[in-house]
Protein backbone atom coordinates (compact mmCIF):
# COMPACT_ATOMS: atom_id res chain seq x y z
CA UNK A 1 0.00 0.00 0.00
CA UNK A 2 1.45 3.38 -0.92
CA UNK A 3 1.36 6.36 1.39
CA UNK A 4 -1.11 8.09 -0.92
CA UNK A 5 -3.52 5.23 -0.50
CA UNK A 6 -3.28 5.73 3.23
CA UNK A 7 -4.44 9.30 3.13
CA UNK A 8 -6.58 11.55 1.05
CA UNK A 9 -4.70 14.78 1.56
CA UNK A 10 -1.99 15.69 4.02
CA UNK A 11 -1.03 18.98 5.64
CA UNK A 12 1.98 18.75 7.91
CA UNK A 13 1.65 21.54 10.48
CA UNK A 14 5.15 21.39 11.94
CA UNK A 15 8.23 21.09 9.75
CA UNK A 16 11.47 22.71 10.83
CA UNK A 17 13.89 24.50 8.55
CA UNK A 18 17.09 25.71 10.16
CA UNK A 19 19.85 28.13 9.37
CA UNK A 20 23.09 26.43 8.38
CA UNK A 21 24.94 29.49 9.54
CA UNK A 22 23.82 32.79 11.02
CA UNK A 23 25.71 34.50 8.21
CA UNK A 24 22.76 33.52 6.01
CA UNK A 25 20.99 36.45 7.66
CA UNK A 26 23.60 39.05 6.69
CA UNK A 27 21.68 40.21 3.57
CA UNK A 28 18.66 40.94 5.73
CA UNK A 29 20.27 42.80 8.62
CA UNK A 30 21.76 46.28 8.82
CA UNK A 31 25.27 46.71 10.15
CA UNK A 32 24.13 47.58 13.65
CA UNK A 33 22.58 44.18 14.18
CA UNK A 34 25.32 42.34 12.29
CA UNK A 35 27.75 43.97 14.66
CA UNK A 36 25.63 43.04 17.68
CA UNK A 37 25.33 39.43 16.53
CA UNK A 38 28.98 39.11 15.47
CA UNK A 39 28.17 38.08 11.92
CA UNK A 40 29.27 39.20 8.45
CA UNK A 41 32.28 41.45 8.58
CA UNK A 42 31.93 41.71 12.34
CA UNK A 43 32.51 38.00 12.98
CA UNK A 44 34.75 37.39 15.93
CA UNK A 45 35.40 34.36 18.05
CA UNK A 46 37.39 36.14 20.70
CA UNK A 47 36.31 35.57 24.24
CA UNK A 48 33.41 33.43 23.12
CA UNK A 49 34.12 30.98 25.90
CA UNK A 50 34.30 33.65 28.59
CA UNK A 51 31.53 34.78 30.85
CA UNK A 52 29.92 37.79 29.11
CA UNK A 53 31.98 37.02 26.02
CA UNK A 54 30.77 37.34 22.46
CA UNK A 55 27.09 37.36 21.58
CA UNK A 56 25.54 33.93 21.46
CA UNK A 57 22.20 33.19 19.89
CA UNK A 58 19.90 32.15 22.76
CA UNK A 59 19.88 28.39 23.10
CA UNK A 60 18.24 26.08 25.58
CA UNK A 61 20.22 25.22 28.65
CA UNK A 62 18.73 21.74 28.36
CA UNK A 63 20.91 19.74 26.01
CA UNK A 64 19.32 16.77 24.29
CA UNK A 65 21.40 13.80 25.52
CA UNK A 66 20.95 11.65 22.39
CA UNK A 67 24.07 10.97 20.28
CA UNK A 68 22.37 12.86 17.43
CA UNK A 69 19.80 15.30 18.77
CA UNK A 70 17.94 15.44 15.45
CA UNK A 71 16.69 12.48 13.39
CA UNK A 72 19.88 10.88 12.19
CA UNK A 73 18.34 9.68 8.91
CA UNK A 74 17.69 13.26 7.79
CA UNK A 75 21.14 14.59 7.03
CA UNK A 76 21.19 16.08 3.54
CA UNK A 77 23.74 14.65 1.07
CA UNK A 78 26.05 17.63 1.54
CA UNK A 79 26.45 16.66 5.20
CA UNK A 80 24.89 19.84 6.53
CA UNK A 81 22.41 19.87 9.44
CA UNK A 82 19.04 18.10 9.03
CA UNK A 83 16.49 20.70 8.00
CA UNK A 84 18.99 22.98 6.26
CA UNK A 85 18.38 21.96 2.64
CA UNK A 86 14.99 22.85 1.12
CA UNK A 87 15.30 20.50 -1.87
CA UNK A 88 16.40 17.54 0.22
CA UNK A 89 13.67 18.10 2.79
CA UNK A 90 11.10 18.27 0.01
CA UNK A 91 12.16 14.88 -1.31
CA UNK A 92 12.91 13.22 2.03
CA UNK A 93 9.64 14.24 3.67
CA UNK A 94 7.12 15.71 1.27
CA UNK A 95 7.62 13.29 -1.63
CA UNK A 96 7.81 10.30 0.69
CA UNK A 97 4.62 11.23 2.55
CA UNK A 98 2.84 12.80 -0.42
CA UNK A 99 2.39 15.96 1.61
CA UNK A 100 0.15 18.62 0.07
CA UNK A 101 1.42 21.45 2.28
CA UNK A 102 4.22 21.63 4.83
CA UNK A 103 3.97 24.48 7.32
CA UNK A 104 7.47 25.66 8.14
CA UNK A 105 8.17 26.79 11.69
CA UNK A 106 11.73 28.02 12.14
CA UNK A 107 13.63 25.29 13.94
CA UNK A 108 16.98 26.69 14.98
CA UNK A 109 15.58 28.72 17.87
CA UNK A 110 14.11 32.12 18.51
CA UNK A 111 14.95 35.44 20.10
CA UNK A 112 11.42 35.91 21.41
CA UNK A 113 12.47 35.75 25.06
CA UNK A 114 15.76 37.61 24.53
CA UNK A 115 16.39 40.60 26.76
CA UNK A 116 17.22 43.09 23.99
CA UNK A 117 13.89 43.39 22.23
CA UNK A 118 15.07 45.82 19.53
CA UNK A 119 17.74 43.36 18.39
CA UNK A 120 15.24 40.52 18.68
CA UNK A 121 12.74 42.36 16.47
CA UNK A 122 15.30 43.01 13.73
CA UNK A 123 16.56 39.44 13.87
CA UNK A 124 12.95 38.23 13.67
CA UNK A 125 12.20 40.27 10.53
CA UNK A 126 15.40 38.99 8.94
CA UNK A 127 14.60 35.38 9.83
CA UNK A 128 11.12 35.76 8.32
CA UNK A 129 12.58 37.12 5.09
CA UNK A 130 15.23 34.38 4.98
CA UNK A 131 12.54 31.71 5.44
CA UNK A 132 10.40 33.21 2.73
CA UNK A 133 13.21 33.67 0.21
CA UNK A 134 15.20 30.49 0.74
CA UNK A 135 12.42 28.04 1.57
CA UNK A 136 8.96 29.15 0.62
CA UNK A 137 10.00 30.25 -2.86
CA UNK A 138 11.74 26.92 -3.46
CA UNK A 139 8.72 24.61 -3.53
CA UNK A 140 5.01 25.28 -4.01
CA UNK A 141 4.17 22.92 -1.15
CA UNK A 142 5.92 25.07 1.44
CA UNK A 143 3.95 27.45 3.63
CA UNK A 144 5.31 29.28 6.66
CA UNK A 145 4.44 30.82 9.97
CA UNK A 146 5.94 34.23 10.57
CA UNK A 147 7.66 35.02 13.83
CA UNK A 148 7.04 38.15 15.89
CA UNK A 149 8.29 39.74 19.10
CA UNK A 150 5.74 38.86 21.79
CA UNK A 151 7.45 41.18 24.27
CA UNK A 152 6.66 44.22 22.11
CA UNK A 153 3.16 44.06 20.62
CA UNK A 154 3.63 47.33 18.68
CA UNK A 155 6.65 45.92 16.85
CA UNK A 156 4.81 42.62 16.41
CA UNK A 157 1.88 44.41 14.75
CA UNK A 158 4.30 46.30 12.47
CA UNK A 159 5.84 43.02 11.35
CA UNK A 160 2.43 41.49 10.68
CA UNK A 161 1.47 44.59 8.67
CA UNK A 162 4.73 44.29 6.74
CA UNK A 163 4.37 40.69 5.55
CA UNK A 164 1.23 39.17 7.06
CA UNK A 165 -0.83 39.40 3.89
CA UNK A 166 1.50 37.24 1.84
CA UNK A 167 -0.55 34.19 0.90
CA UNK A 168 2.26 31.79 1.79
CA UNK A 169 2.15 32.97 5.39
CA UNK A 170 -0.48 30.88 7.14
CA UNK A 171 0.01 31.64 10.84
CA UNK A 172 1.86 33.70 13.45
CA UNK A 173 4.45 31.79 15.43
CA UNK A 174 4.35 33.90 18.57
CA UNK A 175 6.40 31.88 21.05
CA UNK A 176 5.86 31.85 24.76
CA UNK A 177 7.29 34.41 27.18
CA UNK A 178 6.62 34.95 30.85
CA UNK A 179 3.39 36.87 30.25
CA UNK A 180 0.40 34.51 30.17
CA UNK A 181 -1.24 34.34 26.77
CA UNK A 182 -4.56 35.82 27.85
CA UNK A 183 -3.18 39.14 29.09
CA UNK A 184 -4.26 42.37 27.40
CA UNK A 185 -0.59 42.93 26.56
CA UNK A 186 -1.18 40.65 23.53
CA UNK A 187 -4.54 41.94 22.41
CA UNK A 188 -3.22 44.24 19.66
CA UNK A 189 -1.56 41.14 18.18
CA UNK A 190 -4.78 39.15 18.48
CA UNK A 191 -6.75 41.95 16.89
CA UNK A 192 -4.64 42.00 13.74
CA UNK A 193 -4.31 38.21 13.70
CA UNK A 194 -8.08 37.87 13.70
CA UNK A 195 -8.43 40.58 11.06
CA UNK A 196 -5.86 38.85 8.82
CA UNK A 197 -7.39 35.43 9.54
CA UNK A 198 -4.03 34.19 10.81
CA UNK A 199 -3.96 31.77 13.75
CA UNK A 200 -1.58 32.30 16.62
CA UNK A 201 0.81 29.36 16.82
CA UNK A 202 2.60 28.51 20.02
CA UNK A 203 5.56 26.18 19.69
CA UNK A 204 8.24 25.43 22.31
CA UNK A 205 11.48 27.29 21.66
CA UNK A 206 11.78 30.03 24.23
CA UNK A 207 11.36 27.70 27.19
CA UNK A 208 14.69 27.91 28.98
CA UNK A 209 16.35 30.09 26.34
CA UNK A 210 15.99 33.69 27.43
CA UNK A 211 15.53 36.08 30.30
CA UNK A 212 11.83 36.43 29.54
CA UNK A 213 11.21 32.70 29.23
CA UNK A 214 8.22 31.23 31.03
CA UNK A 215 8.94 29.31 34.19
CA UNK A 216 7.95 25.71 34.71
CA UNK A 217 5.75 26.53 37.66
CA UNK A 218 7.57 24.90 40.51
CA UNK A 219 11.20 25.35 39.58
CA UNK A 220 13.87 24.45 37.06
CA UNK A 221 14.06 20.96 35.59
CA UNK A 222 17.22 18.96 36.18
CA UNK A 223 17.33 17.09 32.88
CA UNK A 224 16.20 17.37 29.27
CA UNK A 225 13.69 14.59 29.91
CA UNK A 226 12.19 16.54 32.82
CA UNK A 227 12.17 19.73 30.75
CA UNK A 228 10.57 18.10 27.69
CA UNK A 229 7.88 16.35 29.69
CA UNK A 230 7.04 19.57 31.52
CA UNK A 231 6.24 21.49 28.33
CA UNK A 232 2.62 20.44 28.68
CA UNK A 233 2.42 22.56 31.82
CA UNK A 234 3.19 25.65 29.74
CA UNK A 235 0.46 24.73 27.28
CA UNK A 236 -2.02 24.09 30.04
CA UNK A 237 -1.26 27.35 31.82
CA UNK A 238 -1.70 29.34 28.63
CA UNK A 239 -4.99 27.67 27.67
CA UNK A 240 -6.33 28.55 31.12
CA UNK A 241 -5.15 32.15 30.75
CA UNK A 242 -6.67 32.61 27.27
CA UNK A 243 -10.09 31.43 28.42
CA UNK A 244 -10.16 33.17 31.80
CA UNK A 245 -9.03 36.54 30.46
CA UNK A 246 -11.86 36.58 27.91
CA UNK A 247 -9.71 36.52 24.77
CA UNK A 248 -12.24 34.39 22.90
CA UNK A 249 -15.11 36.67 23.87
CA UNK A 250 -13.23 39.67 22.48
CA UNK A 251 -11.82 37.78 19.48
CA UNK A 252 -14.35 35.04 18.75
CA UNK A 253 -12.76 34.09 15.43
CA UNK A 254 -9.19 33.87 16.72
CA UNK A 255 -7.57 30.44 16.55
CA UNK A 256 -4.66 29.49 18.80
CA UNK A 257 -2.77 26.39 17.74
CA UNK A 258 -0.61 24.75 20.40
CA UNK A 259 2.03 22.73 18.62
CA UNK A 260 4.20 20.20 20.45
CA UNK A 261 2.83 20.81 23.93
CA UNK A 262 0.85 17.55 23.91
CA UNK A 263 -2.93 17.44 24.04
CA UNK A 264 -4.30 14.68 26.27
CA UNK A 265 -3.96 17.02 29.25
CA UNK A 266 -6.71 19.16 27.78
CA UNK A 267 -9.32 16.64 29.01
CA UNK A 268 -8.79 17.18 32.76
CA UNK A 269 -8.08 20.86 32.10
CA UNK A 270 -11.54 21.20 30.54
CA UNK A 271 -13.17 19.30 33.38
CA UNK A 272 -11.54 21.34 36.09
CA UNK A 273 -12.14 24.66 34.33
CA UNK A 274 -15.80 23.85 33.76
CA UNK A 275 -16.23 22.85 37.38
CA UNK A 276 -14.48 25.95 38.69
CA UNK A 277 -16.41 28.25 36.38
CA UNK A 278 -19.72 27.04 37.81
CA UNK A 279 -18.58 28.26 41.23
CA UNK A 280 -16.34 31.19 40.32
CA UNK A 281 -17.86 32.68 37.18
CA UNK A 282 -18.47 36.01 38.94
CA UNK A 283 -14.71 36.52 39.03
CA UNK A 284 -14.57 36.21 35.22
CA UNK A 285 -18.06 37.41 34.30
CA UNK A 286 -16.99 37.94 30.69
CA UNK A 287 -16.66 34.16 30.36
CA UNK A 288 -20.20 33.48 29.25
CA UNK A 289 -20.16 29.79 28.42
CA UNK A 290 -18.38 26.72 29.69
CA UNK A 291 -14.61 27.12 29.33
CA UNK A 292 -14.51 23.83 27.42
CA UNK A 293 -16.78 25.36 24.78
CA UNK A 294 -14.27 28.15 24.08
CA UNK A 295 -11.46 25.59 24.02
CA UNK A 296 -13.30 23.45 21.48
CA UNK A 297 -14.18 26.48 19.37
CA UNK A 298 -10.90 28.40 19.38
CA UNK A 299 -7.97 26.17 20.37
CA UNK A 300 -6.23 23.47 18.37
CA UNK A 301 -3.41 21.07 19.19
CA UNK A 302 -0.61 19.50 17.22
CA UNK A 303 -0.51 15.71 17.44
CA UNK A 304 3.24 15.39 17.87
CA UNK A 305 4.74 14.00 20.03
CA UNK A 306 1.87 11.55 19.85
CA UNK A 307 0.98 10.28 23.29
CA UNK A 308 1.39 6.54 23.69
CA UNK A 309 -0.77 4.96 26.38
CA UNK A 310 -0.23 1.28 27.14
CA UNK A 311 -3.41 0.50 25.21
CA UNK A 312 -3.07 2.72 22.11
CA UNK A 313 -6.81 2.78 21.53
CA UNK A 314 -7.24 4.61 24.83
CA UNK A 315 -5.97 7.74 23.09
CA UNK A 316 -8.79 7.53 20.55
CA UNK A 317 -11.23 6.96 23.39
CA UNK A 318 -10.00 10.10 25.07
CA UNK A 319 -10.27 12.15 21.88
CA UNK A 320 -13.84 10.99 21.40
CA UNK A 321 -14.63 11.42 25.10
CA UNK A 322 -13.92 15.14 24.98
CA UNK A 323 -15.22 15.72 21.44
CA UNK A 324 -11.79 16.72 20.16
CA UNK A 325 -11.88 15.11 16.69
CA UNK A 326 -11.88 18.56 15.07
CA UNK A 327 -9.12 19.93 17.30
CA UNK A 328 -6.06 17.92 16.30
CA UNK A 329 -3.52 18.87 13.66
CA UNK A 330 -1.06 16.45 12.12
CA UNK A 331 2.57 17.36 12.81
CA UNK A 332 5.63 15.36 11.81
CA UNK A 333 8.09 17.69 13.57
CA UNK A 334 10.64 16.69 10.95
CA UNK A 335 13.62 16.56 11.44
CA UNK A 336 13.45 16.52 15.23
CA UNK A 337 14.24 13.48 17.31
CA UNK A 338 10.75 13.14 18.74
CA UNK A 339 8.85 13.32 15.44
CA UNK A 340 6.08 11.00 14.29
CA UNK A 341 5.90 8.76 11.25
CA UNK A 342 2.67 9.24 9.38
CA UNK A 343 1.90 5.59 8.69
CA UNK A 344 2.74 4.25 12.14
CA UNK A 345 1.70 6.84 14.71
CA UNK A 346 -2.00 6.85 13.81
CA UNK A 347 -2.67 3.15 13.24
CA UNK A 348 -5.38 3.11 15.87
CA UNK A 349 -7.18 6.17 14.59
CA UNK A 350 -10.38 5.44 12.65
CA UNK A 351 -10.06 6.38 8.97
CA UNK A 352 -12.42 9.34 9.24
CA UNK A 353 -10.54 10.73 12.24
CA UNK A 354 -7.23 10.33 10.40
CA UNK A 355 -8.56 12.37 7.50
CA UNK A 356 -9.68 15.11 9.84
CA UNK A 357 -6.31 15.20 11.59
CA UNK A 358 -4.27 14.93 8.39
CA UNK A 359 -6.20 17.38 6.26
CA UNK A 360 -9.54 18.87 7.25
CA UNK A 361 -8.49 20.26 10.61
CA UNK A 362 -5.25 21.89 9.39
CA UNK A 363 -7.10 23.34 6.41
CA UNK A 364 -9.60 24.97 8.77
CA UNK A 365 -7.03 26.04 11.36
CA UNK A 366 -4.42 27.83 9.29
CA UNK A 367 -4.93 30.46 6.58
CA UNK A 368 -4.62 27.94 3.80
CA UNK A 369 -7.70 28.89 1.84
CA UNK A 370 -8.10 32.05 -0.22
Amino acid at each position, binding site marked *: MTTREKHNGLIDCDVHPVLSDFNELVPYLDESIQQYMNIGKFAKGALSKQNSGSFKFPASAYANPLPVPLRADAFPPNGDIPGSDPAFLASDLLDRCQTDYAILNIGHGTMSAFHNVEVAAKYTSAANDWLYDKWVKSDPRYRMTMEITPLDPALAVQEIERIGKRPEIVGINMHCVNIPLGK*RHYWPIYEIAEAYNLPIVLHPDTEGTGEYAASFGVGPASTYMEWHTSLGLIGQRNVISLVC*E*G*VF*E*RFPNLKVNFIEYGFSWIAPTMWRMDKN*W*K*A*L*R*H*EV*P*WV*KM*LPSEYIRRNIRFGTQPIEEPARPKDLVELIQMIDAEHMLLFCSDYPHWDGDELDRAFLHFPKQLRHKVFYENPLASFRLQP
Partner: protein
Amino acid sequence: MRSQEKHRLVLCSAEELREGERRLFEVDGVEIGLIRAEGTCYAFRNSCPHQGVPMLYGSVVGTMLPSEPQEYVYGLHNEIIRCPLHGWEFNLKTGKALFSPQVSIKMYDAKEEDDEIVLYLDREPQQIVQKQFACAL
Protein backbone atom coordinates in the same frame (compact mmCIF):
# COMPACT_ATOMS: atom_id res chain seq x y z
CA MET B 1 -54.72 33.14 40.43
CA ARG B 2 -52.55 30.07 40.25
CA SER B 3 -51.59 30.29 43.88
CA GLN B 4 -55.29 30.19 44.83
CA GLU B 5 -55.45 26.65 43.43
CA LYS B 6 -52.63 25.56 45.67
CA HIS B 7 -52.62 24.55 49.28
CA ARG B 8 -52.03 27.42 51.62
CA LEU B 9 -49.71 26.73 54.54
CA VAL B 10 -48.87 29.26 57.25
CA LEU B 11 -45.24 28.77 58.30
CA CYS B 12 -44.74 31.48 60.90
CA SER B 13 -45.61 35.03 61.75
CA ALA B 14 -43.93 37.85 59.86
CA GLU B 15 -42.34 38.84 63.19
CA GLU B 16 -40.53 35.52 63.20
CA LEU B 17 -38.82 36.16 59.89
CA ARG B 18 -37.17 39.54 59.99
CA GLU B 19 -34.77 40.90 57.40
CA GLY B 20 -31.83 38.53 56.92
CA GLU B 21 -33.30 35.78 59.09
CA ARG B 22 -33.60 32.15 58.11
CA ARG B 23 -35.86 29.31 59.17
CA LEU B 24 -35.97 25.65 58.34
CA PHE B 25 -39.12 23.53 57.93
CA GLU B 26 -39.72 19.94 57.00
CA VAL B 27 -42.88 19.37 55.03
CA ASP B 28 -43.73 15.72 54.42
CA GLY B 29 -40.08 14.78 54.72
CA VAL B 30 -38.74 17.51 52.45
CA GLU B 31 -36.62 20.25 53.98
CA ILE B 32 -37.62 23.74 52.91
CA GLY B 33 -35.48 26.76 53.70
CA LEU B 34 -37.09 30.12 54.31
CA ILE B 35 -35.23 33.38 54.08
CA ARG B 36 -35.99 37.11 53.92
CA ALA B 37 -33.74 39.33 51.84
CA GLU B 38 -34.39 42.98 50.96
CA GLY B 39 -37.89 42.52 52.39
CA THR B 40 -38.80 39.63 50.12
CA CYS B 41 -39.47 36.12 51.40
CA TYR B 42 -37.99 33.19 49.53
CA ALA B 43 -38.58 29.48 50.13
CA PHE B 44 -36.52 26.78 48.47
CA ARG B 45 -35.69 23.12 48.73
CA ASN B 46 -32.85 22.89 51.20
CA SER B 47 -30.55 20.86 49.01
CA CYS B 48 -28.08 21.91 46.33
CA PRO B 49 -28.65 19.93 43.10
CA HIS B 50 -24.89 19.43 42.85
CA GLN B 51 -23.85 17.52 45.97
CA GLY B 52 -26.87 17.94 48.20
CA VAL B 53 -25.57 20.22 50.95
CA PRO B 54 -28.15 22.38 52.78
CA MET B 55 -28.70 25.59 50.82
CA LEU B 56 -29.99 27.45 53.88
CA TYR B 57 -26.37 27.98 54.96
CA GLY B 58 -25.70 29.81 51.71
CA SER B 59 -24.68 33.46 51.53
CA VAL B 60 -27.23 35.85 50.05
CA VAL B 61 -25.30 38.15 47.77
CA GLY B 62 -25.17 40.15 44.58
CA THR B 63 -22.87 39.15 41.76
CA MET B 64 -20.99 40.23 38.66
CA LEU B 65 -23.26 40.29 35.64
CA PRO B 66 -22.13 38.91 32.27
CA SER B 67 -19.97 41.68 30.83
CA GLU B 68 -17.42 42.67 28.25
CA PRO B 69 -13.93 41.23 28.78
CA GLN B 70 -12.04 42.83 31.65
CA GLU B 71 -15.05 44.84 32.91
CA TYR B 72 -16.91 44.22 36.15
CA VAL B 73 -20.60 45.12 36.42
CA TYR B 74 -22.26 44.45 39.77
CA GLY B 75 -25.94 43.60 39.99
CA LEU B 76 -28.70 41.37 41.39
CA HIS B 77 -27.95 42.71 44.86
CA ASN B 78 -29.12 40.18 47.47
CA GLU B 79 -31.00 38.22 44.82
CA ILE B 80 -28.46 35.40 44.70
CA ILE B 81 -27.94 32.56 47.13
CA ARG B 82 -24.66 30.72 46.94
CA CYS B 83 -24.28 27.08 47.77
CA PRO B 84 -22.34 26.90 51.07
CA LEU B 85 -20.01 24.23 49.69
CA HIS B 86 -18.89 25.07 46.13
CA GLY B 87 -20.40 28.50 45.76
CA TRP B 88 -22.80 27.81 42.88
CA GLU B 89 -25.00 30.87 42.41
CA PHE B 90 -28.78 30.52 42.22
CA ASN B 91 -31.14 33.35 41.43
CA LEU B 92 -33.62 33.54 44.32
CA LYS B 93 -36.35 34.87 42.02
CA THR B 94 -36.16 31.98 39.54
CA GLY B 95 -34.15 29.25 41.24
CA LYS B 96 -31.92 29.01 38.17
CA ALA B 97 -28.15 28.69 38.41
CA LEU B 98 -26.34 31.64 36.90
CA PHE B 99 -24.05 29.36 34.93
CA SER B 100 -26.90 27.50 33.24
CA PRO B 101 -30.70 27.76 33.12
CA GLN B 102 -30.73 23.96 32.94
CA VAL B 103 -29.64 23.74 36.58
CA SER B 104 -31.82 25.05 39.42
CA ILE B 105 -32.96 24.71 42.98
CA LYS B 106 -36.67 24.18 43.49
CA MET B 107 -38.31 27.40 44.64
CA TYR B 108 -41.62 27.47 46.47
CA ASP B 109 -44.22 30.17 46.32
CA ALA B 110 -43.72 32.10 49.59
CA LYS B 111 -45.59 35.28 50.51
CA GLU B 112 -46.14 37.63 53.38
CA GLU B 113 -49.90 37.93 53.94
CA ASP B 114 -51.59 39.61 56.89
CA ASP B 115 -48.46 39.48 59.06
CA GLU B 116 -47.94 35.81 58.27
CA ILE B 117 -45.41 34.00 56.10
CA VAL B 118 -47.37 31.70 53.86
CA LEU B 119 -46.32 28.92 51.54
CA TYR B 120 -48.42 27.71 48.60
CA LEU B 121 -47.88 24.05 47.79
CA ASP B 122 -49.03 21.80 44.94
CA ARG B 123 -50.03 19.02 47.32
CA GLU B 124 -51.81 19.23 50.59
CA PRO B 125 -49.18 18.95 53.32
CA GLN B 126 -49.67 16.22 55.89
CA GLN B 127 -46.81 16.80 58.31
CA ILE B 128 -45.09 20.10 59.01
CA VAL B 129 -42.20 20.51 61.43
CA GLN B 130 -40.11 23.56 62.16
CA LYS B 131 -36.55 22.38 62.71
CA GLN B 132 -33.80 23.87 64.78
CA PHE B 133 -31.56 26.00 62.60
CA ALA B 134 -28.71 28.36 63.30
CA CYS B 135 -25.97 29.70 61.14
CA ALA B 136 -23.34 32.36 61.46
CA LEU B 137 -24.53 34.42 58.50
